[in-house]
């Protein structure tokens, strides 16, 4: 069951579209449910599809197409690091090895305590601040150094 809070947020998104185009809100509805539950299970996607009155498969297509949706648990903090060209040129490889060493996990793995998951991201459109990473799809951290990464991780309790 979608929570009352999620429904309020999804209903706000629905005001952006014509009444007969409820499916248009699926991008944000999936984001809202994922933010609330940590990741998108098949059941979560079904609930979103039912609420919007769209075929389940169509919601599943969206959830699997866009790479910020997580279809498996990602721990409490999902850390996504960009390794694309502008970040690579400014040392993202070093940040990646530092993160992997510190967390003891590779890409797409969750730490045993369930706290962190490390993901490799494609360009996030903030290349002026390279190298950079994203926490839980919302917080952008730019101009990373290994010291700065340590401080950020320290702040994630």
């Amino acid at each position, binding site marked *: 069951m979608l929570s009352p809070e999620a429904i309020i947020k999804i209903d706000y998104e629905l005001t*952006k579209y014509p009444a007969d185009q409820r499916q248009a809100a699926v991008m*944000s509805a999936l984001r809202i449910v994922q933010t609330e539950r940590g990741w998108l299970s098949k059941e979560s996607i079904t609930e979103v599809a039912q609420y919007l009155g769209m075929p389940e498969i169509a919601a599943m297509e969206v959830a699997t197409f866009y790479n*910020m949706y997580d279809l498996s648990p990602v721990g409490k903090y999902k850390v996504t690091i960009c390794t694309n060209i502008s970040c*690579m040129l*400014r040392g993202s490889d070093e940040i990646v090895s530092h993160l992997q060493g510190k967390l003891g996990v590779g890409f797409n793995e969750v730490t045993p305590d369930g706290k962190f998951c490390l993901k490799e991201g494609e*360009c996030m459109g*903030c*290349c002026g601040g390279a190298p950079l990473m994203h926490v839980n*799809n*919302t917080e952008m951290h730019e101009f990373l150094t290994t010291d700065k990464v340590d401080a950020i991780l320290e702040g994630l309790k």
Partner: protein
Amino acid sequence: MVASSKPVIKTDLAGQTLVTLRTLTEDNPASLDTYLKLGGYAALKRIVTEKVKPTDIITEIKTSGLRGRGGAGFPTGLKWSFMPRYFDGVKYLVCNTDEGEPGTFKDRDIIRYNPHQLIEGMAIAAYTLGARVGYNYIHGEIWQDYEIFEAALHEAKAAGYLGENLFGTSFSFDLYAVHGYGAYICGEETALIESIEGKKGQPRFKPPFPASYGVFGKPTNVNNTESYTSIPWIMQNGGQAFADLGVANSGGTKLFSVSGHVEKPGNYEVKMGMPFTELLALTGGVWKGRQLKAVIPGGPSTAVMPASAILSATMDYDGLSKARSSLGAGSMIVMDDTTCMVKTLHRLSYFFYEESCGQCTPCREGTGWVYRVIDRIVKGQGKMEDLDLLTDISNNIAGRTICALGEAAATPVLSFIKHFRPEFEYYIQHGKSMVDGK
């Protein structure tokens, strides 16, 4: 809600000509008060209350020489003239703030530092084209900036610049923020439209073009963020004044997103036609006192240029096409002399492979094939004939796909090999990089 953003270091603005980021001279650039103080929304108010003829506005935009800032460079005034004048139903306006091509981050600064000028530009466009509803599609990775823009929308609505019967006239325009969630392809306008409709972002066949069949099947005008944001300035100062800022065929200013090996990466808004060397100097030059090796001038879908070619180029549409590349979205990626071009292309080819939407076989299969061949070169298992193979595959992707991603994926492969062939040959012969020896 009040939009707010971080204060900006004003000294960084030296040498720039601010049109789309003109609020950067102020302390709280994103706020409505700041924008009003700089004369914001005056052009919209005048146009709507004086009932300026839409055809006159389009003529002004044509005079300005404004060309689409998303990369294609299509004349904006001409594009606007494609929208059907009379249509029984809702017409839509879409803004493309879906920056996902590596090195592109200019529109982010517009929505976080000058959101109201974009809103005003879209409102003027809506009035001109008879659009009732607009969407600004923002890529999901910049969530904090999405929230700044959405707050600005609420602020504009409360102040009477969006919504019904604006300025007591019959003109009404609703504008909403919507978001992507991690798909480069949605920067392609028809994929973006599919995404707004709540679908996978797979490009549509054109024709029909969005002007006749766009959002929800209705006539839709799609422009880039920087293009819309230029409109209020043009309507305030005149099309000719905008044209005069730039050079022939490239009117106005351009936001250059400079990343990679420069001292001060970031956005620089300068007059079109600025010599590359001058722009490089604004960024503090190549970092660590190193030498310039190569520049991708407009994003990876534009051809890489060796230092010798870019050093004499000017930064405008004709200047870069004469130098055998293109302006693209103005996403300049600078590489110093320690850069291994084989490894750089390896990374780029992975990007295009990862981001192909999978719809067209040449792109879906070709980008993966290209990546695997470069991957084996990087792993020391390359063969000399791989270079011809890469060229052949790329030539067979370009022009054989629904959208421009095919060309975008082929261009870096072809241009990297063309300009830096000896590096590729060395890597294949020695199993390691000629540059870093690893």
